[in-house]
């Protein structure tokens, strides 16, 4: 099992969600995050310009069986891209075990 975590533009969230559904990924969690990155946003307040590198993104966390890894990543890569700096990152890591709380069963079947 793999955990796939993606940091994406908020504006791309619905495209990514639909792409994931299309390839059969129906369970995931997400939350809004603020972070630092290469992108700088210019602002002007009362005649004084300033820039901030604090940027708002959406963080998606997906756990899939190994055979879903490649299609899930491709779905995100294709749907979250704009080509500009700041499109985000995908992290992949191994997951040791997974349990379904309702039944107590464990293993890859719990993700289906």
């Amino acid at each position, binding site marked *: 099992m793999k955990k796939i975590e993606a940091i994406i533009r908020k504006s791309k969230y619905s495209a990514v969600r639909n792409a994931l559904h299309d390839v059969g990924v129906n369970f995931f969690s997400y939350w809004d995050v603020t972070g630092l990155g290469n992108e700088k946003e210019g*602002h*002007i*307040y*009362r*005649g*004084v*310009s*300033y820039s901030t590198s604090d940027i708002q993104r959406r963080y998606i966390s997906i756990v899939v069986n190994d055979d879903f890894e490649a299609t899930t990543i491709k779905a995100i890569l294709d749907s979250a891209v704009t080509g500009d700096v700041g499109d985000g990152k995908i992290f992949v890591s191994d997951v040791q075990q997974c349990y379904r709380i309702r039944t107590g069963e464990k293993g890859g079947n719990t993700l289906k």
Partner: protein
Amino acid sequence: MELLTINNVWMMICTALVFFMHLGFAFLEIGLTRQKNTINILFKNIFIITVGLLLYALVGFNLMYPGEFNGFLGFAGFGLESPLTTQGALDLTYNEGYTYWTDFLFQGMFAATAATIVSGAVAERIKIFPFMIFVVLYVGFIYPIAGSWKWGGGFLQELETPFYDFAGSTLVHSVGGWAALVAVCLLGSRIGKFKNGKIQAIPGHNIPLATAGVLILWLGWFGFNGGSVLSADPGLTSLTLVTTCLAAAAGGVVAAVVSYLRYKNLDLTMFLNGILGGLVGITAGADQMSPTDAIIIGAIAGAIIVLAVSLIDRLKLDDPVGAIAVHLVCGIWGTLAVGIFGELASGAQFVSQLIGVVSYAVICIVSSFIILYTLKKTVGIRVSEKEELEGLDGFEHGMDAYPDFRLNEH
């Protein structure tokens, strides 16, 4: 009697509108400052309107309208005492425009405004108790004494060409503005406003609230200027409302355009300050101007706002909400404009306006300096660095304006 009833109703509506301006000031000030100081600012504003009104009842009204006096300082005694007829009823011949009670309350609403102006300029760093002491002295004594010079029939009213200030560009707005300037100089700037000599932006935390504040202030100005006619005179009140609104609109538009030309940015906060600049600018002569005059006065005030905000920044003075630019600089402009535009325009009038501006500069700068400098040298007027960094709300009040949601047991 019928006429008095109509006049009095209009004056009470205006009183309510001026009261509403305190909400506008509160919204504007918290909108343009940081979240961590919100409770502190609201506390100051609520303190000003409550204590200000009580002080005005106790001493202010009778300092400001002492009747016959030497022109500089008079006092008609403590408290309110309604004039009675021989039968013991309220004497309705007190004035053809309003009753004694309406007179007091309308003027009382004005009095608190002057200190509210200071509150915005010193936001996010002043200690609350010294500020309260300052408010008591300034609203209780300085504002009404200064006001008596003109509205109480004092020496500025007795000039050969009387000084003219219809609704208080000088008597209210500059009186607050001068004290704001002195306070900002004595307090110093907020931590982080100037880094290595460079001006830094400290954005306000709630621009929608600031916008609501400005629109509420604009509405309040219908009463501020409309009520300063001191009756429901149909010609004058409707003209005054027209000049007031046109100046506000022109001020906003010109401030937005000038700030766009200077900074290549559509800055809403400058747009908002421009509206207030136009309102303050027209206040001295709102009943004397044609609609065209009003637009010109408002437009110039709008341009002044953008330049003054930038100048005040460059002088290393930190005024989080632009109170000095709006109330002092545009207050002076509006006062002088009475000598340049409108029915009263003349060289002699301009000189009288200048005498008025200088007189108020002297009393306000001297008195607020004495009060604030004494407080600075005795109890201190600035919060500790730690308190300023972490926010005044937690230290002075032990509260958050927007408490984080906590996990509840469902």
